[in-house]
């Protein structure tokens, strides 16, 4: 019966989940690690500060570490960086009117292209 198939699914999924979902996030320092990959190195501009060995990158990593330890959140850290270095230093483009096309574009494109094809293709 078809139902059995789907319950086998669930079982396998659960087994997988159990073996994976033991990541110790306290050890992870998630915010710090996330932030250093989202901040661009201003000296070696093709790298993020996690990767770059430039002195500025090291300084910025320390600054992020400092802010994370002080309990500051993601928005604060990003604002701190962009106030001094402009939006360029952040790998996530801001949600400002200037970036509207960037954020809306893909979904608009999807809508337009779907409409076009579905209208053309189906038997009336």
């Amino acid at each position: 019966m078809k139902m059995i198939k789907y319950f086998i699914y669930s079982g396998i999924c659960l087994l997988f989940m159990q073996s994976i979902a033991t990541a110790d996030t306290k050890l992870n320092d998630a915010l710090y690690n996330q932030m250093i990959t989202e901040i661009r190195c201003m000296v070696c501009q093709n790298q993020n500060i996690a990767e770059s060995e430039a002195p500025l990158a090291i300084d910025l990593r320390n600054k992020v570490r400092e802010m994370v330890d002080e309990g500051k959140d993601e928005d604060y850290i990003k604002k701190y960086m962009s106030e001094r270095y402009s939006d360029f230093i952040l790998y996530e483009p801001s949600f400002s009117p200037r970036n509207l096309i960037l954020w809306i574009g893909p979904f608009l494109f999807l809508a337009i292209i779907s409409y076009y094809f579905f209208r053309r293709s189906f038997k009336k």
Partner: protein
Amino acid sequence: MISYIGSFLILLALLNASLLVLSKPMLSKITSGYDALILSTSKLQFPLVLIAFICLIISFVDDDFSLKYISSNSNSALPFFYKISATWAGHEGSMLLWCLILSFWTFMASIYSKSLDMQFRIKFLSVMGFLNLGFLLFLVFTSNPFEKNISIPIDGKDLNPLLQDFGLIVHPPMLYMGYVGLSVVFSFAVTCLLQNDFKKEWARWIRPWALMSWSFLTLGIALGSWWAYYELGWGGWWFWDPVENASFMPWLITTALIHSLITCEQKSMFKNWTILLSIMAFSLSLLGTFLVRSGILISVHSFANDPARGAFILLFLTIVVGGSLLIYFRNSPKIKDNISFDFFSRESFFLINNILLVTATFTILLGTMYPLFLDLLGLEKISVGVPYYNAVFLPIMTPLALLAGYIPILFLSKNKDKKYLINHLFMSLLVILFLSFFSMIFFDNFNFSTLLGVFIFIWISFNIIYDLIKRYYVSNTRNVFFINIGMTLAHLGLAVFILGATIVENNKIEKEIVAKIGETIKIKNYAFKFTNLSQYEGPNYTGIKAQFLVYENNTLITELYPEKRIYASNDMPMTEAGIDPGLSRDLYITLGSLINDDVWSIRIYHKPFIRLIWLGALMMVLGGVLSVLSKRKRMKIAPLR
């Protein structure tokens, strides 16, 4: 001496390509023997460029610093194998490699096109000749690897240390095989337009070529990802770097193309769309070449910037893409294309597949070009990176991945389609809800992304394998497993890739810590003991090597040796990671910087299931290759209608 031969051969190749292109227009009025000329010049191109390339390699090995290209990319202390691979490390040499591979594909297209009718074949090879000519002109006039130095230096500069690596040797050639292979598909599509027709047999003929290019591209991209992972020292495998995007976009379009060709071949639908995809695929290839070599975007891959070269490539791009698009708009109305099918049908799936892939391509193009666009408007410079693509690209790809689970439906008869589909849709939704609810109760580290990734993996692989087994029991022959083995393997590879990528990105552990010799760092049930630090001299660098003993559950399992290297030619220290690979997890250590005396900053990573990413990619490559091979067998059995 050798370099003069190389130079000369390049000019010969240029001449040969010109002959290939001009034969038909110039000679068709005079004689009908131009057929033979086109066939021979299309084959001759390859040996000419090949020997020139070999001349360049020999010059590198001989330390011929009279050549500007060699003195900029190599020196006498460079290890032997890297002298060879340095041939394609810089702009000029890699352009020669491009021309070589293009001549190779032209050669193959010439030999294997006997089943096409002569008229078509001639035009097809002429278009390829045109591409050969364009690239050789670019090479000779702006990027000649055989250009001489005004004064011969005693020794050369060094090969960028990052490139002194096995990965460099294989990644570019494989990638180029893919990129350039798309020129065959492109030329074919343009020829179809010129013939005002697109027969079923033609779609069948071109599909293996598209598959072959796709396989090479997949391999090239996977190699680049793996190389970046172990070489760049922070464990990342994809950065959405503009040049990475430039290779990914043709891959997405080629994937769409492969699926579209099937519809073309079986139902004779979407002919014009397939042609357009073929043009787009190669255009994106050319765009990629332009982006890497023009200096227009900031990227880790950029060759030396030169606006003049950029302008030349742009001109070529405009002519090729603009020209083919013009021909498309003029001729495609003449190609009879009857598109109509049911909503619940196989064609629908292929259409959705194409729509999603093209949208994904557009998204990446938008993200890559947007900063440039704003800059040109005089607005602020911005950056578009990983967070953007994760937010926009992943939602588009998820439905696509789910679609792959419906492959078994493709084999059902039409009547069952609708009911089966609705059932499937309903049940899959139920399953996700059920699992989410359960997971939230039992696990405290509930992560929806991991759940989704695991679900997609099981959804695709279970559906495919269950269906195969079912059909085996019905038909009682093992043939069932081998009929579409390429397709099966490729889609399973996709599932494996998604599993690996999802798990590692959502469950990885990264610890940055300060330690000195004798200290032990713990992650999960692993312990890393920092036991030694020593300095040593490499062939062209000074290295500092650290030793870590790795224990799992208090048993010693391995030793890792992360290093820092300072090359004589370069100021920036290079990091070599110490990696313990495993299918279920990678352990990854890098040395940071010296804090004071004997205290170092260390980074330790635990990356669960990261190898599945490249395993999945390899499965896809193998699947593509098997598809080509089994097709050829079937083509020999079933004659062309």
